[in-house]
């Protein structure tokens, strides 16, 4: 809804973008498709769904539009925040799909830009921008849960290299990734947060194996990843050895900020009102109807809050810890929404297949992954309300 006054330069920029998109975006990539199926993840294992997807990626990568705000030297287009916003608006206006999505773009890139050495930047950023390396994230470990700093996977010092042993869990698409960025325990004697390093590893290294995790909702992109005597050169540490927690913290904040920029807190799929309008008991069951009204009101207020935070961010005011509120309310509300959709659809929702059942079960993870609701509430309590402890 928001529109800012644009200076003359930006108007010209917008018109240039529009022309470029018109000339370069293949018609198949203008279908406005979203969701998992429309994503191009890139990497060596990637199979393009069609020739247009490949062409679209290549054309964008050529001009740096896969990572528009990154410096040109690292494969980006060097766009300003305002220019980036215009690019996104024009792409949306055209219904253009995103040319490339990846953990490399969302997560590792920003970390390398901030903490990486010049060699690391030059080695890794341009291939990320071109969609040549697919990354996965190795943070969580079995038994650690919300305690991300409780890293047990050990990197033993061997002089020029580390010898890594241990296990990660919840590594999305580890089975298709080329590289992993992971937190490893490099000093067992130091205090919990001070003996961790942020390390990049080639997934084809000897000793790395993966196993997909089946969720209660069915198949999932999550994997367990096992490390058995994996050799990793020391120059693959990002930032200072044993100070990997600084990198991790930066990424966690960055992740929550992304969420507050309209990430998928709200979930997607059918609007509750539409479901109820179609449902057999939508009008006659006051319990369902009353709760649906409440959920609809809360959804609208949450949308307004997302928009408000975006406006704040554009005004240069960071969202910061308030993103914990979005994460918490968004995921809890999404769970509620899917419960109501299940109830509205009745027996029709109780089978696998073209039903909301799998989404419903999947939403239950929303309030666990990326920081549990309990962790969010504690963040709000401490950092926003300044309550003790």
């Amino acid at each position, binding site marked *: 809804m*928001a529109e800012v006054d644009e200076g003359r330069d930006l108007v010209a920029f917008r018109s240039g973008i529009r022309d470029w998109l018109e000339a370069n975006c293949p018609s198949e990539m203008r279908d406005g498709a979203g969701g998992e199926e429309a994503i191009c993840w890139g990497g060596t294992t990637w199979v393009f769904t069609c020739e247009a997807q490949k062409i679209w990626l290549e054309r964008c990568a050529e001009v740096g539009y896969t990572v528009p705000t990154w410096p040109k030297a690292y494969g980006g287009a060097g766009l300003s925040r305002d220019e980036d916003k215009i690019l996104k608006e024009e792409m949306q206006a055209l219904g253009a799909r995103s040319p490339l999505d990846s953990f490399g773009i969302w997560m590792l890139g920003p970390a390398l830009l901030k903490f990486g050495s010049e060699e690391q930047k030059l080695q890794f950023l341009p291939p990320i921008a071109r969609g040549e390396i697919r990354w996965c994230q190795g943070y969580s470990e079995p038994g650690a849960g919300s305690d991300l700093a409780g890293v047990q996977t050990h990197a033993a010092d061997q002089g020029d290299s580390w010898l890594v042993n241990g296990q990660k869990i919840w590594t999305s698409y580890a089975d298709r990734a080329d590289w992993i960025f992971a937190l490893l325990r490099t000093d067992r004697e130091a205090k919990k947060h001070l003996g961790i390093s942020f390390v990049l590893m080639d997934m084809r290294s000897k000793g790395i194996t993966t196993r997909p995790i089946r969720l209660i909702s069915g198949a999932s992109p999550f994997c367990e990843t096992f490390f058995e005597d994996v050799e990793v050169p020391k120059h693959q540490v990002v930032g200072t050895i044993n100070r990997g927690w600084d990198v991790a913290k930066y990424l966690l904040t960055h992740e929550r900020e992304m969420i507050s920029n309209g990430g998928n807190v709200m979930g997607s799929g059918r609007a509750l009102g*539409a479901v109820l309008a179609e449902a057999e008991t939508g009008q006659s069951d006051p319990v369902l109807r009353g709760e649906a009204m409440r959920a609809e009101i809360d959804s609208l207020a949450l949308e307004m809050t997302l928009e408000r935070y975006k406006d704040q961010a554009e005004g240069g005011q960071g969202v910061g810890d308030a993103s914990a509120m979005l994460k918490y309310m968004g995921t809890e509300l999404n769970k509620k929404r899917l419960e109501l959709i299940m109830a509205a659809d009745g027996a029709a929702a109780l089978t696998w297949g073209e039903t909301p059942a799998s989404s419903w079960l999947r939403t239950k993870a929303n309030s666990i992954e990326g920081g549990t609701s309990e962790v969010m509430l*504690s963040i709000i309590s401490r950092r926003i309300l300044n309550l003790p402890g």
Partner: protein
Amino acid sequence: MAKLIQTEEENLLAEAAKGFLSKSSPVSRLREMRDGGKSSDPDLWQEMAAAGWAGVLVPEAADGSDMGHAAAHVLARAMGRNLTVSPFLSTAVMAATLLRQFDDPATRQKLSQISAGGLTYAFALDEGAKFAPQSVEMTAEKRGNGYLLNGKKRFVVDGCEADRILVLAKSEEGLCLFDLANSNKGLTQDPLDMIDSRDAADLVFDDVEVSGEALLGEPGAGFDLLKPALEAGQAALAAETAGLAEAAFAMTTDYLKERKQFGITIGSFQALQHRAAHLCCEIELTQSAVLNAGRILDQSPNDAGLAVSVAKARATDTAQKSVQEGVQMHGGIGMTDAFDMGFYMKRARVAAEWLGDYGYHAGQVAKLRGF
């Protein structure tokens, strides 16, 4: 669409309002008013008018400052925080919004008086116990050049003290909106002993004669004329209620930081922390809804229905939660009249009902969202 953040001007206005009210209208002023057996505070209204608040929605041509709904919400929210008693909503928000639809000298004169704090209004809306502005049994019978009004209106906020009354009645030509003096012959005010200690009355219209000039706009167009005023009032009341919720919550979090039980600051109890954090989120969402309603009322008032109902529903609900947690977390002291939380709880209850409760606005949202 303007952004969903307060502008620099709005921030300044909020600061000014806070400063003014902390001096002129702390909660103790409401307590004194109540303990003195009064239900209104005309002196305070004069001060507020002098500060320019009464004209916030009055056009400049009628001597107002015409700052718009979002600005009115900034003021209402500040008043909600302090439980300020005034005819601001009825008069400065609702009556001004209603009257500015007309551009004749007589109306301009009224608006100018409103802006100067010299004229107050009350809306006589409900005939039953629940808000249902289109359910009108009150009759307007054509009598010569004018009308004869008969019927009863309940829960008329500011109904005792207001100089003039705006009321819907049904005539042969449909719903008609009348603007008449509260001192009119045949019109009696039964004051209500309200739990929020404010002015409200049941009004009885017994053969009240009004001239043709009392009819606003065309016969039959009464509800259409009323609607913008209702929406403006609902949104401003949402802002007031959101302010109330914030203030009650602030009292509660302050208490959580001070109070010790079993030797420990109670704010360090995780169960209370999480409940407070949840309430903090509720308040945040409600603030967004109120901001959004203000923006839309200022920019495309004809499409404001959904935004207004979301704001009123959210504010109503959030305020209830805030005062309930407020009393519970304060424990025994929260239950005593000597402590202010009870005033917040009672005002939240009255504000919940006025101009449509949660269920009413939830119904509006469902209708507008197509289910």
